[in-house]
């Protein structure tokens, strides 16, 4: 560990603003607490525990279960159920008895990141759903999964992986809903994506699973980056990631709208809203308990949760609210109609989820206190009902011996009365029949729509009718009609969760108060102000009730008139398949792969081209540099003076250059080497005339050894091989190209080198010091003293290079032996 502050670490202005902001935040938090009736005014050990305990229990559930499962597979399910139950209990205790609370630790001071968690109303609502339904799902899976694996002939050792990921899903949901720091939210956000990725791909040997997992990952993962962008935008502007601070300080405007829009898009994609909805039905490739969880309390719920969390920022922009309205309504309709046309049970439910979360988004778009609160209430009601329905679908499939299609099921009422009753309650809940919690969800929904005014109540009515219709279709399709084949009995562990969820749907329809108060607490967080709601049965003809009655009446009509519109729904679904976003997804994925193949064909694959690819850009960059900078400066190039004493030097230079150019001509290798050494030895003379006897001596010796080595290697190669290469590959075309490249690089080198050499030499130079200091270092030969003393490290490096070359040659030619 080390301390960040150093002398040279200059804080930017933004950072100062950030620190300032966090001070404000303290005050702000206190303010919020005092406004809230449910929270105690200040931090106490109890309120800290109320946050830490649920969080910790939820987060350790997965590793504990994985560990237990690794030790003994049979322990997986009990440990999983126990940890989920504990987490649920802790959340319940933390909210209902301890009254919530918050913790806030520094995490990364450089970015002002904080480990800030708060168990507020919104967090409590979603955390209860995540842990509660998580518990139901894990319990259900402990019986379902062995059967599932048995069908696929897979070993039991695959069980722990499933439970671990489901519980990781649960833990990351709990973390997500409590987190107050946007980057922390982003981390948990992606953790849920990771968990769902592996769960969707649980049947990894099936191509469908892999395809769906990739799709879910790409859609939710890539859009999650938008959340990150939004967070960074806010951080750069306001110096903090902490949501309460941002809500306090952020000023409405196009910048804030953009940041909030990015975060909202991430939420919409995860909630499978149009046009991102296509990944969700595909995610049905996962085992049924995963779908039940994903749809009701985890992945998809996380999307609307995020919108609820950043809603105070979103609602600063009317444009965003309107956009939510449009998207919500589109999802409601598209999901509803597609649900009507699906035959596979889970597909129907999947599209229904899209539609249902469309309601929630629609309500957020409606705005106002009713919108925000009703959205939260809707999530509770939907989660209870939808998880029960998914588990029902799994149970029905299991009971019928693997049948997944509605058209091949039916008449199960008599064989599975308990299942029928429980799922009937859940379906009624979703369809908003009275005496279920669902009735109130629609009541609030209509209320919010009415508050906003026409034409929204009519749109809401349309959505409600769709829901009623497909729920009817779902339930009657399984349980009514003629019996199809034999129905196997189901284990109690599979039935119990469904029953409990069904009962809860009814209980909520009778004792709505606890749900309503939780909703109010959650709505207050989203709306950033009080959101009083009063769901109740009113036996009069108020507009809300009229709308509900209209729903039932028109719904019944639609159900009866099915033959009239079934074809149209089918056509709609067909159009979606042909033109819908999944098609775009497939098209762009295969398109990308094809395009990648296409450009790979262009990729350079010869050494020559690889070298050209360096020389040409070099030339272009040098040219660009000249163009940019040269006009401002006159007299870049100077010719220099020639004195009579320079004549031997010039002769040697000319010889060197001419011999070098000549080296490009000969075909014969021996001639080539001789011409090369001619150039080299002339260069040696140049060094000597330059006043560098040491350099000249070394150059002579190096040139000698190099010539010998070249000749020796040539001698090692049979003359036939060399002959072959002399005639090969020297077509006029390649020759011409070689000379063009050579000539061009000569020009580039010339421009660069001449430019540098033309500069007048600087007045002070370190070389003068070297000359002066050489006697101090006990030497007459200044070059040697530079090599051995002043710059001895260079020489040490140089002989190290020599040594490595020797090792390399040995490795290549004598299996690494130096002897």
């Amino acid at each position, binding site marked *: 560990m080390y301390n960040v502050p150093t002398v040279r670490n200059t804080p930017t202005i933004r950072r100062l603003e950030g620190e300032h902001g966090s001070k404000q935040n303290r005050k702000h938090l206190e303010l919020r607490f005092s406004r809230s009736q449910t929270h105690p005014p200040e931090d106490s050990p109890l309120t800290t525990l109320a946050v830490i305990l649920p969080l910790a229990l939820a987060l350790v559930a997965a590793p504990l279960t994985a560990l237990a499962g690794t030790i003994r597979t049979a322990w997986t399910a009990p440990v999983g159920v126990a940890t989920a139950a504990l987490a649920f209990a802790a959340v319940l205790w933390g909210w209902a008895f301890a009254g919530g609370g918050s913790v806030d630790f520094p995490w990364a001071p450089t970015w002002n990141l904080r480990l800030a968690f708060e168990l507020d109303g919104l967090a409590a609502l979603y955390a209860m759903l995540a842990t509660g339904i998580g518990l139901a799902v894990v319990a259900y899976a402990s019986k379902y999964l062995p059967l599932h694996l048995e069908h696929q002939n897979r070993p039991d050792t695959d069980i722990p992986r499933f439970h671990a990921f489901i519980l990781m899903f649960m833990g990351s949901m709990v973390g997500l809903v409590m987190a107050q720091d946007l980057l922390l939210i982003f981390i948990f956000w992606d953790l849920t994506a990771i968990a769902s990725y592996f769960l969707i791909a649980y049947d990894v040997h099936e191509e469908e699973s892999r395809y769906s997992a990739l799709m879910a990952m790409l859609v939710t993962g890539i859009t999650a980056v938008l959340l990150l962008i939004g967070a960074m935008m806010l951080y750069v502007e306001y110096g903090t990631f902490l949501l309460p601070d941002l809500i306090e300080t952020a000023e409405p405007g196009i910048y804030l709208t953009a940041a909030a829009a990015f975060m909202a898009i991430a939420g919409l994609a995860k909630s499978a809203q149009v046009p991102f909805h296509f990944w969700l039905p595909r995610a049905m490739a996962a085992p049924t308990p995963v779908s039940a969880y994903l749809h009701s309390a985890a992945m998809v719920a996380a999307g609307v949760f995020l919108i609820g969390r950043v809603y105070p920022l979103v609602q600063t922009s009317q444009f965003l609210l309107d956009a939510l309205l449009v998207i919500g309504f589109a999802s409601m309709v598209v999901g509803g109609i597609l649900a009507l046309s699906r035959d596979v049970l889970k597909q129907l439910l999947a599209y229904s989820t899209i539609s249902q979360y469309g309601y929630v988004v629609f309500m957020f778009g409606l705005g106002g206190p009713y919108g925000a609160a009703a959205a939260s209430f809707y999530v509770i009601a939907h989660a209870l009902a939808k998880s029960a329905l998914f588990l029902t679908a799994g149970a029905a499939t299991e009971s019928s011996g693997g049948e997944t299609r509605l058209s091949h099921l039916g008449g199960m009422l008599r064989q599975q009365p308990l299942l029928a009753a429980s799922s009937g309650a859940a379906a009624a809940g979703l369809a908003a029949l009275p005496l279920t919690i669902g009735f109130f969800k629609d009541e609030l929904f209509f209320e919010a729509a009415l508050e906003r005014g026409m034409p929204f109540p009519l749109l809401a009515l349309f959505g409600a009718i769709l829901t009623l219709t497909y729920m009817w279709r779902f339930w009657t399709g399984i349980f009514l009609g003629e019996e199809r084949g034999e129905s196997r009995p189901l284990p109690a562990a599979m039935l119990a969760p469904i029953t409990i969820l069904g009962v809860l749907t009814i209980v909520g329809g009778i004792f709505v108060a606890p749900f309503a108060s939780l909703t109010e607490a959650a709505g207050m967080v989203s709306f950033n102000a009080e959101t009083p709601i009063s769901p109740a049965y009113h036996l009069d003809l108020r507009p809300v009730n009229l709308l509900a009655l209209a729903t039932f009446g028109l719904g019944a009509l639609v159900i009866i008139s099915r033959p009239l519109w079934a074809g149209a729904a089918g056509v709609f679904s067909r159009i979606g398949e042909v033109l819908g976003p999944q098609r775009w997804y497939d098209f762009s994925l295969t398109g990308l792969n094809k395009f990648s193949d296409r450009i790979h064909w262009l990729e350079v694959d010869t050494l020559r081209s690889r070298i050209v690819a360096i020389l040409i850009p070099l030339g272009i960059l040098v040219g660009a540099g000249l163009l940019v900078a040269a006009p401002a400066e006159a007299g870049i190039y100077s010719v220099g003076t020639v004195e009579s004493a320079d004549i031997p030097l010039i002769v040697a230079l000319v010889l060197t250059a001419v011999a070098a150019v000549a080296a490009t001509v000969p075909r014969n290798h021996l001639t080539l080497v001789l011409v090369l050494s001619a150039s080299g030895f002339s260069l040696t003379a140049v060094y000597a005339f330059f006043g560098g*006897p*040491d350099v000249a*001596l*070394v150059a002579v*010796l*190096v040139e*000698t*050894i190099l010539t*010998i*080595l070249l000749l*020796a*290697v040539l*001698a*090692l190669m049979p*003359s036939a091989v060399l002959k072959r290469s002399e005639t090969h590959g020297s077509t006029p075309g390649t020759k011409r190209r070689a000379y063009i490249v050579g000539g061009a690089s000569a020009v580039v080198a010339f421009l660069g080198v001449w430019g540098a050499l033309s500069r007048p030499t600087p007045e002070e130079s370190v070389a003068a010091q070297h000359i002066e*200091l050489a006697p*101090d*270092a*006990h*030497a*007459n*030969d200044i*070059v*040697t*003293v530079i*090599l*051995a*003393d002043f710059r*001895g*490290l260079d*020489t*040490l490096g140089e*002989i*190290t290079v*020599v*040594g490595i*070359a*020797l*090792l390399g*040659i*040995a490795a290549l*030619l*004598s299996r690494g032996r*130096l*002897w």
Partner: protein
Amino acid sequence: MTEPKTGSGAKGGATMTVMTQTIARILFLPALMTGIAVLIKGYADVGDGFNAGVIAGLAFLLQYVAFGYEEAREKLRTKYLPAIGFCGGLLLALLTAFVPLLLGKPIFTHSPAPGAEVIHIGTFELITAVAFDVGVFLMVFGFALGAIDIVARATSRNHAGGSAEEREAGT
């Protein structure tokens, strides 16, 4: 040295070989001496460890050319010389560079310190920089000899199965 093997070529070739070998024998010691002289005089005049190493290496190379790889290698006991040159030279150079660090001075601090008295033996000065130069010499000599040795070994391996003409063409 024993009587050298004659080449497999014509009579003129044999005379040539004898001449080469004689010259090589005569030149060997002077060449080595030159190398060492260049090394010792390095601080006073042109030349340093690098030059010395290459010159000494060339002296050995001459013997390889004249007497053939196997024989020269055996007679001059050069088998381990490259490894010794590599390891000894680099270690010596490294030690001169790094030992001052252990004494609390910067890397490459030579002693005697600048300006202090130096013991002279002729033009030869007793300073640690010379030790460094000896390291350079050893390394470069090791390289020159080693590279030639490895290539020569590759040659003899390459031509072991070939015909006599090929062997002649190869050397």
